[in-house]
């Protein structure tokens, strides 16, 4: 297990040294979300209606930004080979890398979302549901994204392919995540959507590291 924490610590340390990558995704999220109220104008009813969708789509695209760099640097400098040769199972190390990816890209989005929600006139209840849905959904985005990043590793023009591969797989997360907030606002309760999102997260947490590992082994051979 100590190797898993070492991987998380190393990736967080690297993210601290290469701040621009983390900050790019974060500012992308802030700017995209802030453009909509400016473009649409001050219509609280309309803004409230589109808020969950916009926040979720922006979070999804912001997560996509750094995805191509999830394994590429490790592949280029031979770290991935050393991970394969480590006595610790590769699946666990990959799970550690995915966790670090979420901490650096997903978690800041979760923390920022309520602040950005104010622009859309969301009340505190809806803000709370938004945070919970992002808390459940963003790890899932990292998990699914890792599979795509591993499959496109070392391909020329992998970035575009990665988007084509991963974005359709993000659709269920988007539907249930944004749906939870919409359901709360319309008064039907967000419980069902959040439960389904949590179920998807459990499923993804179990299968995604395994699928990513299999894809990485193919890329390395």
């Amino acid at each position: 297990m100590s190797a898993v924490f070492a991987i998380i610590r190393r990736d967080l340390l690297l993210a601290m040294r290469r701040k621009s990558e983390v900050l790019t995704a974060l500012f992308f999220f802030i700017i995209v979300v802030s453009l909509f109220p400016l473009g649409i104008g001050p219509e609280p009813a309309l803004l409230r209606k589109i808020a969950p969708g916009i926040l979720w789509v922006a979070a999804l695209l912001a997560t996509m930004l750094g995805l191509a760099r999830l394994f590429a640097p490790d592949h280029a400098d031979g770290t991935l080979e050393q991970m394969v040769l480590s006595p610790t199972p590769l699946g666990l190390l990959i799970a550690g890398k995915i966790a670090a990816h979420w901490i650096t890209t997903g978690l800041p989005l979760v923390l920022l979302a309520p602040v950005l929600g104010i622009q859309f006139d969301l009340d505190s209840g809806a803000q709370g549901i938004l945070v919970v849905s992002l808390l459940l959904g963003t790890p899932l985005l990292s998990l699914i994204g890792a599979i795509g990043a591993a499959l496109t590793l070392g391909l020329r023009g992998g970035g575009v392919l990665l988007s084509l591969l991963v974005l359709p797989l993000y659709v269920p997360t988007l539907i249930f995540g944004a749906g939870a907030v919409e359901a709360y606002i319309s008064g039907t309760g967000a419980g069902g959507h959040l439960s389904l999102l949590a179920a998807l997260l459990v499923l993804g947490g179990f299968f995604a590291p395994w699928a990513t590992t299999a894809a990485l082994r193919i890329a390395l051979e």
Partner: protein
Amino acid sequence: MLSATSLSCVRGERHLFDGLDLAVGPGEWLHVQGENGAGKTSLLRILSSLSPPAAGEILWRGQPIKTLGEDYRREMLFLGHHGAVKEELTPLENLTLAAQLDGTSLSEADAMKALARFGLRGREDLPVRFLSAGQKRRVLLARLAVRQATLWILDEPFTALDVKAVDMLSGLIVEHVTGGGIAILTSHQSILLPNGKVLVL
């Protein structure tokens, strides 16, 4: 004891080698030689279990490495062409994190000692990207001094090293081999170390 029987390696349509046999015992080292593209790196990757051979079997202490899995990986250290050294981290961080990745812990004092041995004293806390190519190589090779492994598989370990570092590395390999270890390495230079075997691809 590492042995391999009738190994073959196929890259695309090309057969790099067929029916290759080799055996290296404790206290011996193997020098793999061959022209560029002869399959030296491919052979080392196969021996380190990074890629599977097209045919043949590799035995470690009489058991196939495929079934040994992590027991084999724990006793083996592979250093490839690429550094596996992170440019943004310092030599000290690189070394301790690599040790933790191997499932062992490395005290800061031991890491400092290994880096000092490779002439990196005073540069422990400088990000690796500020070091020269040879110094980067030294950071990587410092792992040899701290990692407890019986089998060393080194791909071109002497590249980019100056005369002093070559001597240091040779000394380390001799020390390892006389202590009952095994080393397999590729190099275009001729290496004058005792107990060597030569394999020409």
